[in-house]
Structure formats: C-alpha cells, structure tokens
C-alpha cells in the first residue's frame, strides 16, 4: 500500500500491518525488519519501511490516570487530542505539545517533540516517567531513569529505532482553565524578534511566525505570540461560562490537491503580509481557546494538500545562541533569494537540554516548508550547509531529504547512537527509509 509522511513526500509502497495485541506484534517483529508508525504526522520518511510498517494506532487504550499526581498511563497509539479531551475537564493539560494534536504518544516520544514552552520546560521526554519497549528479541522492557536508563534515554528522540514503544506514563501539568492568555507583539525584523524573545523568557509559551518574504531591510519581520495558561480568576464572564472549552469545531477541509500554480511566491507573499498585518491588528492581550492557540492548522483538516500532489518538505534546524542572529539571517536571505515561498516560517527560542539523540539544544529553531520540487530541494541543501557552518542541528521528524554526510557533520552524537543500535540488535530489526538514508 502506498503511504507517506505528512508532507506526502516521499511516497513508498509499504507492506503495512495493524496489530492490536502484544502477541501479534511480537510475531511481526520476529518476522523481519520493521518500523513502527503512529498517526503519520512525521513529515518525511521516518515511519516508512517497505518490508514492514507496523501501524500502532490500534494500541489506543488509556490505562490509568492518577488525579492527584497528574500521571497518565496510555498505550502508544493514543492520540494527543483524545488525551486533552479526557484530562482538561479534570484540570490537566499535556506538559509539552507540538503544533498538532493528531500525533500519537509513541510518536511524540520517538521524536521527543518540543513545544512553544521549550525554553522553560524542555521537551516531551522530560515528562515521560517510564516506557514499556518491545525490543528486537520480542521481549518487553520497562525503561525509566532508574530501570534500563540507557535504553530509556536513547528511546526518547530515538525515532523508533531502539524498539517499539508499547505504553508510557506521562506527567501532565495542572491548569485552571482551557483558555490561553495570549499577547501578540509585532517584530520589525529578526533582531527585534530575538530581542522580544529574550525579554519574554518568563512567558510559558512563545513562538514567532515570520513573514519570510518581507523586504530585505525588514528580514525576519514577524509576529511574536506569547501565551500563558489563564488562571480562573483572570477570566472574563464569557470565558468563565465555559472554563474548559472543547475542541473547536472543524470548519474547513482541504479535500483536493491544490494545482501546482496555486502556491507561488506571490500568493505566499500575500498570505504572509496578511498574517503579519493581522498580528499587528491583534496586538495586545486576549484570551483564546487552547485548540485555537496551540493547533491553528488542525482547524484546516488535510492542510498538507495545499502543496499539491507532489507534496512538500519541511526544513527545521536549531542554531546555538552564539550564532543565531548571523545564521538565521543567512537562512532567511537564502530563502528570499531563491524566491521559494515558504508558507509557514516559524522561529522559536529553545532552552538547554541534555539528551542522547533528541533534536533540541539551547538556541533558536527555525522551521520552513517548501513544495517538493527541484528548486526547493536545491535550496534546502544550501540551508543544510548554512546550518552546519553555524554549529546547528536538524530535526529528524521533519526531514525527508537530508544526506548522511550532512547529519554526520552536524551531530557528534551519531556514533554513540549507531553503536547502541548495533550492540542491542536493534539495527537488524528496526529501520525506516530515513534511517537507511542517514545510515543510522
């Protein structure tokens, strides 16, 4: 069956299985090399394996919830949005969330997702208490900071290449409402955006949407969006009437592939200019529902189809603080110069993080996406080189096309990861098209 990641590039004909108990999963693992797949939200080829891709969405039971500690135990295929629906009315929220609620817990651990609060709370992995992992020989190991600590550390951000995540216990964060107090600050240029981030480090959430086709002297023009879980006593009457709003009704769906010409530098420029103008217009304090704040794109189901049938590729890197201004400037300049419209350009401050193979490190992360065509693939190679030259690193959950030499140059942790895979037998049992391409 032909499947792909969220970017719909690349596509591959994969044998796919849908087990729903451990016995059948074990038989599959022992039958030959495979990779686990969640809800297909990694952008590239992280969850594609032609010989066997195992869809884990059938493992979708919530197992236990402790309302005093806020620890939730779930099977790996449980969807984040379902967790929010279950725990928010009880006064809890995921401690870290990526930009879509349609991800599985297994996927969130395997990619060690980060959110708008990374500068303050770190990545999702810091809130994982333990993981039950089915390893190459079919046995199940409980992994935590005290039990099998090495395997635990490698599995967080390990791209599913250490084994198959069956269950996990995650720590949630108490909240007094489902509303976010949001403040939007317009930034004239990149330096201004960074200055706003640096003086806003006390805010729990921060992210900037960049108009990446702004005129040259306004490079990095953006809207910095800050947010805080609203306390009950801050809420107005309208919010207090519904302190825990549900999922915002889905209104639109892109159910066809946009034609190739729909997204070009002019339409993207227009979109970004409107977005920036709206940011300026909305500047100041306001309350928004959690769903609108964290998941604006989820409101447009199937938004990945706006790039047309050929799909799109994401580029996301993080640069250390010392090279941020220079490096991000070069990345944005290269993008503007190539005239490749990036529909979404997002900048975010990251905090310090120690990890074996996860993406985040202290600095700034920039995410761009491009239609999957020859010109943008060439541009992305330039962006790779700029990133490596500035000591940056790449987010594998977004990657669909990077070369193994680039990864080698960017990440000194690679050999330890490979060695762990070889020694544990995982290398022979678990691989994806991405891990082959990157020789992981």
């Amino acid at each position, binding site marked *: *069956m032909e499947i792909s990641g969220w970017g719909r590039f690349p596509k591959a004909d994969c044998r*796919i299985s*849908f087990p*729903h108990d451990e016995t059948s999963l074990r038989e599959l693992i022992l039958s030959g090399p495979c990779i686990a797949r969640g809800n297909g939200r990694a952008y590239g080829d992280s969850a594609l394996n032609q010989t066997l891709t195992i*869809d884990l969405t*059938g493992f979708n*039971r*919530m*197992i*236990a*919830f402790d309302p005093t500690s806020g620890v*939730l135990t779930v099977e790996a295929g449980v969807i984040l949005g*379902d967790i929010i*629906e*279950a725990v928010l*009315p*009880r006064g809890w929220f995921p401690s870290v969330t990526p930009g879509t609620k349609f991800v599985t817990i297994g996927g969130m651990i395997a990619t060690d997702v980060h959110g708008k609060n990374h500068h303050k709370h770190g990545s999702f992995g810091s809130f994982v208490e333990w993981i039950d992992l089915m390893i190459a020989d079919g046995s199940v190991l409980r992994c935590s900071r005290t039990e099998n600590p090495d395997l635990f550390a490698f599995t967080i951000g390990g791209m599913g290449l250490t084994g198959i995540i069956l269950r996990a216990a995650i720590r949630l964060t108490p909240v007094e409402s489902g509303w976010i107090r949001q403040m939007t600050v317009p930034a004239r240029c990149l330096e201004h955006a960074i200055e706003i981030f640096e003086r806003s480090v006390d805010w729990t959430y921060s992210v900037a949407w960049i108009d990446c086709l702004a005129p040259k002297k306004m490079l990095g023009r953006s809207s910095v969006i800050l947010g805080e879980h609203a306390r009950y006593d801050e809420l107005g009457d309208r919010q207090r009437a519904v302190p825990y709003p549900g999922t915002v009704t889905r209104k639109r769906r892109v159910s066809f592939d946009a034609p190739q010409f729909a997204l070009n530098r002019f339409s993207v420029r227009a979109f970004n200019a409107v977005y920036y103008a709206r940011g300026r217009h909305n500047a100041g304090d306001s309350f928004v529902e959690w769903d609108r704040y964290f998941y604006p794109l989820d409101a447009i189901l199937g938004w990945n189809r706006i790039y047309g049938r050929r799909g799109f590729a994401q580029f996301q890197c993080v640069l250390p603080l010392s090279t941020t201004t220079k490096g991000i400037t070069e990345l944005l300049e290269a993008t503007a110069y190539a005239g490749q419209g990036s529909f979404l350009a997002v900048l975010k401050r990251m905090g310090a993080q120690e990890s074996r193979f996860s993406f985040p490190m202290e600095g700034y992360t920039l995410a761009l996406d491009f239609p999957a065509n020859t010109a943008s693939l060439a541009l992305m190679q330039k962006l790779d080189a700029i990133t490596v030259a500035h000591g940056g690193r790449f987010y594998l959950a977004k990657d669909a096309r990077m070369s193994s030499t680039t990864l080698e140059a960017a990440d000194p942790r690679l050999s330890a990861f490979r060695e762990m895979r070889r020694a544990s037998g995982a290398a022979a049992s678990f691989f994806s098209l991405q891990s082959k391409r990157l020789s992981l």
Partner: protein
Amino acid sequence: MLGKRKSLLVVGGTSDIAKATAITFARKGWNVTISGRDLTIAQAEAANLEIRTPGSTITAVALDVLDTASFGPLLGSLSALPDAVLLAVGLLGDQVQAQRNTDHAELIMRSNFEGPCLLLGLIASRFEERGSGTIIGISSVAGDRGRASNYVYGAAKAGLTAFLSGLRNRLAANGVHVLTVKPGFVRTRMTAGMKLPMALTAEPQELGKAIYDAVEKRKNVIYVRPAWRLVMTIIQSIPENLFKKLSL
C-alpha cells in the same frame, strides 16, 4: 443530572463501534457496563472509557456470546436490569474458509446469529415484563442480500435483522424500543488498511452519535451514511436472474 442515571449494557464491548457508542452514552450521563469474553480485557476497556469520559462510571462483566447456557445466570447476577442493551458482537470470518470448513461456518453463524438472538430474547422478555427498555442490535448491510463474497456472514446477519424486526413487532405495544443498525463501512480495526469509498464510510464516533440520536428519536432501522439506504435499495431491487450473474 436530575433523577437516576440510565444504564447501558454493551455486549461485545471491545469493538471500535461498541467503544465509540459507549463513550457517547457515557458523555450523555449514562452508566455503562462493558461485557466481553475475557474479563481482564473488558476491565481494561472499561478503565479506558472511564478515563476518556470525565465524570462517568463504567464497569465490566464477563460474557461469552457463544456460551448460551451462561446467559440466564448472568442476567440474574446483574445488580439491576439495564435501561438499554447494545448488541455489538460479531465475527466477519472468512467466506472461503467458511465454504470449505463447516466448523468455521458454524462459528460465524453462532457468533452473529445464534448467540446474539438467544441473549436478546432473554433480555427482551425481562424488558417486556418491566414495560420498558431499549434493544440496539448492530446488524449489517451484508444481511440485506446474500452475495458470493460474504453470504455466510450475510445470512447470519439477515437472521439477526429478522429477529430484531420480530422483537420490534412483538414488543412495540409494551413500550420496548428495538433499533436495528446497519453501519455499512466503518473505519475500524476490522477494516484497517482497506481502501473504502469516502461517502459510504463512517467513523466510529459518527456511528456512536447516530445510534444515540436514533435511540432518542425511537427510530426503527438506521443506515449510518444515508447513501447506504439508496445503495441497498438498488441492490435489493436487482432481479435475481440478473443478480446471480453479477460478481459481488
């Protein structure tokens, strides 16, 4: 909520359709009991549904739809007769195997027809005695006309449909409501990986809501996606002489 909470017994509580329906009823304030052949699995499912539905009470009992002798004692052991019962057990089986192997054919017939009907018959009499109750039976469009590709399953479901129709006819005057549900294609683990036509394929959640609404409105027979009623009307109206030559 005012007054006593209503209660729903789900027979075959581990299917995706059963779970989605149980969640819909639990969200509307019903107490739900999940039953399954394996008590441990039924309990895990009950815990799952209770976490997913804040404020709900969901319990589990063991019930094997093939163990017909256990039905009487089991119904006697329930603390109270439920207000409604959802019959969601079923076994699609394998048509080719069923043609060759009578044991497999028998298993399909017993799982979809014999067990469900005997159980519903016992419950129906108790509802009749009480003068109230709702019976929801998940049948199938496959029972509307036998086709080469799945007629063993289809025949068993046709039997279930006829049984439900008979119960409805018998109990209408006693205040007992019988709802027959013919889901059509549903995106569940039974159909995972199949390419299904979008207009004819429902999500389990959609089915749960449709069933709840049909109970509220005391409907008799529902197809979840409206297009199915048309499709099945056409399939049923094809003359047998022509139908037998079609590859369906």
